[in-house]
C-alpha cells in the first residue's frame, strides 16, 4: 500500500533514553531506549507484564522513572508531570478507561479543550464576551470531533452509561480535542469486537493521515498492529527485544521466542 503521505515521516519527536523503573524491588522497565518519529504510527507490543503501560506512564509523567530521560523535539524534559506533557502537546488515553463518568460525551471532549481555554473563573462567572467567543470555538471544534468519530447521537449521554466500545471512542475523542502533536493510546482496541476494531483502526489512520498526529499505541492484536503501524518496538520483561518495521519484527527470532515461548 504505497501511497503519498500528506505528512512525511520526519525527525525523532520523542526520545526515550535508558529508562529504568522499579516498584519496590520489582523491576518493571530496565534500561529501555527507543524513539518516535514525527507523523508516524508507532506501536509498542509485548506479552502481559512486559512493561508497556508503565512505559507510557513514564513518558506521560504519571510514573517517575528512577533512571533515564524523556526528550521532546530534542529537548530533555527535566521534571515530567502529566500537566507539563499536556502543555508540550502530548495527550493520551488510558488502558482502563479514565473518562469523566458523570459528564456527557460532549463535556468530556470539551475538557480536552482545556489548554485552548484561556479565560479564568471570574470571566466565566460574569460571562464576558471573551468567554462566549472562546466557548463557541471550543464547542465547534468538539462537535467536529464528535462528527468525525460518528458519535453525534450520544453526545448528550453521560459517559458512564455507554457501552465499552463507545467509551473507548470518546476517550480517543477527548485526546483528539487537545490538538496534540502526539497521542499515546493505551490499548485502544482492548475488549472490542472485530467491527469496532476495524472502526478504531480507521479513525487512528485517518487522524494520522489528515492531521499528521504522531500516534504511539499499545495493542495486543498482532494483526492490527502489523497492519497499521509504521514501526514496532517489542518489550519483554521490561527490555527492548526488537525494534523496526512490522516485517523486521515479525522475523526477529527473539520476538518469536517471547510470543511463542521457548524451551530453556
Amino acid at each position, binding site marked *: 500500500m504505497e501511497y503519498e503521505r500528506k505528512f512525511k515521516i520526519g525527525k525523532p519527536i520523542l526520545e526515550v533514553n535508558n529508562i529504568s523503573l522499579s516498584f519496590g524491588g520489582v523491576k518493571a522497565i530496565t534500561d529501555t531506549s527507543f524513539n518516535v518519529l514525527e507523523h508516524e504510527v508507532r506501536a509498542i507490543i509485548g506479552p502481559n507484564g512486559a512493561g508497556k503501560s508503565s512505559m507510557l506512564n513514564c513518558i*506521560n509523567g*504519571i510514573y517517575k522513572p528512577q533512571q533515564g530521560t524523556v526528550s521532546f523535539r530534542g529537548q530533555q524534559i527535566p521534571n515530567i*508531570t*502529566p*500537566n507539563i*506533557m*499536556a*502543555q508540550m502537546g502530548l*495527550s*493520551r488515553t*488510558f488502558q482502563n478507561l*479514565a*473518562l*469523566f*463518568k*458523570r*459528564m456527557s460525551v460532549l*463535556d468530556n471532549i*470539551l*475538557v*480536552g*479543550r*482545556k*489548554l485552548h*481555554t484561556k*479565560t479564568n*473563573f471570574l470571566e*466565566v*462567572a*460574569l*460571562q464576558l464576551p471573551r*468567554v462566549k467567543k*472562546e*466557548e463557541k470555538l*471550543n464547542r465547534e471544534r468538539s462537535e467536529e470531533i464528535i462528527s468525525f468519530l460518528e458519535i453525534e447521537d450520544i453526545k448528550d449521554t453521560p459517559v458512564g452509561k455507554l457501552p465499552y466500545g463507545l467509551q473507548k471512542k470518546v476517550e480517543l475523542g*477527548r485526546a483528539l480535542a*487537545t490538538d496534540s502533536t502526539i497521542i499515546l493510546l493505551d490499548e485502544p482496541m482492548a475488549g472490542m469486537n472485530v467491527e469496532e476494531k476495524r472502526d478504531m483502526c480507521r479513525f487512528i489512520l485517518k487522524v494520522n493521515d489528515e492531521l499528521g498526529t504522531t500516534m504511539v499505541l499499545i495493542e495486543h492484536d498482532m494483526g492490527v498492529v502489523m497492519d497499521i503501524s509504521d514501526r514496532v518496538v517489542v518489550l519483554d520483561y521490561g527490555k527492548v527485544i526488537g525494534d523496526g518495521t512490522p516485517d523486521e519484527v515479525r522475523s526477529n527470532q527473539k520476538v518469536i521466542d517471547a510470543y511463542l515461548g521457548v524451551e530453556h
Partner: protein
Amino acid sequence: MKPVFMTYTKKDIINLAVCMVLSVLVIPTFITTEYWYTSILIPWLCLALATIGQQIVMGYTGQLALGAAGFMAAGAFAMFNLILRVPDLGFVGSLIVSGLIAAAFGILFGLPSLKVRGIYLMVATLASQFFIIWMIDKFGWFKNYDSSGIITAQDIVILGKPFTTPLAMYFVCLAVTTILTLLAMNMARGSTGRNWMAVRDMDIAAESMGVSLLRTKVQAFAISAFYCGVAGALFAFCYLKSLEPVAFDIKLSFKILFMCILGGLGTINGAFIGAAFILLFPVLLNSVGNNVFHGAIDATIISSIEQVIFGGLMIIFMIYEPLGMAKLWENLKVSFKSKMSSSGIKSAKSSAQKSE
C-alpha cells in the same frame, strides 16, 4: 437545548422569571407575618447560599470537606470588624471583602486536598472549623474586646438607607443570593465547572488533559469559602442579628453537609431544595406534634425523631438516589410530562375514533 442568553436556555429563563416573580412579588404580598421572614425565608436563603459553597467543593469538585460553618464564622466576624473599623467600605463592600477573607482561609485549609483525599480530607478540613472558632474566641480583638460573648450586629445601611425590617432584610438576602447563584451557575456550566467535575470524576485523566489539580482544587476551596463567608455574614446580620462563635459550631457544618447531600450533590437547585427541607422539616414535625398529638409527645422526643429521620433519609438517598431531591424533582417532571403527552395521544386517538 440552545442557550439563548449567557449559558441559560429558554427553560432556565422561564424558571428564573417564575422564581423572581414568586420571591419579589408573590411572597411579599401574601406573607405578612414576620415569623416567616425572620425564621424561615431569611435563614433559608443564607443557608442555601452556604450550601452552594459546599456544593462547589463537594458536589462539583468531589473534595469531601467539612467545615462550612468555620468559613461562615470567618465571614461573619470579618463583616463585623469591617463595618466597625472601616466604615467607608459600606455594607456591600464589606460583604465582598468578608467573602474574600473567608476565601483566603479556604485556600489555606484547601491545601491538604492536594495530598489527602476522601475521609482523611474530611478530617483535615475539620481543622478549619475548630481553628477559626478558636481564633475568634482566643483573640479579643475579633470581638472588639466584648466580654459578654455575644455581640450585637450593626444595622444594615446601604447607600444611607437602613434595612432593618424583616421584609427589607429579606430583600437584601434575596438580592445577594440571586446574584451569587447566577454566578455559580455560570461557573458550573462553563469551562470552570467542567474542570471541577473532571477533577472529581478522574483526576489523573484531568491532569493529562492539562487541568492543574493544584489550581482547580484550591480555586474550588476558595470560591466555596467565599460563598460560605458571604452566607455567614448574612446569617449573622440578617438572621441572628448577633455574633457569637458558638452559632457557627460543627452542628451547622453538618447541617449544611446534609442539605448538600439530600438536595443532590452537584446541583445548584439542590442547594435550595435541601436547605428548605432541612429547615422546614422540624417546623412541620413540631406542628404535627402540637396539632395532631396536642403536645402529648415531648419536644425533646420530637427533636430526636427529627435526627432519626434525617439519618434514615441520608442512608436511603445515598443508596437509591445519590443525586438527591433535585433528581427526584427532575424525575417527577419527566414522568408528569410523559403522562401528559401519553394522555394527550389517547384523547387525540379517542377523538379520532369518534369522528370515524
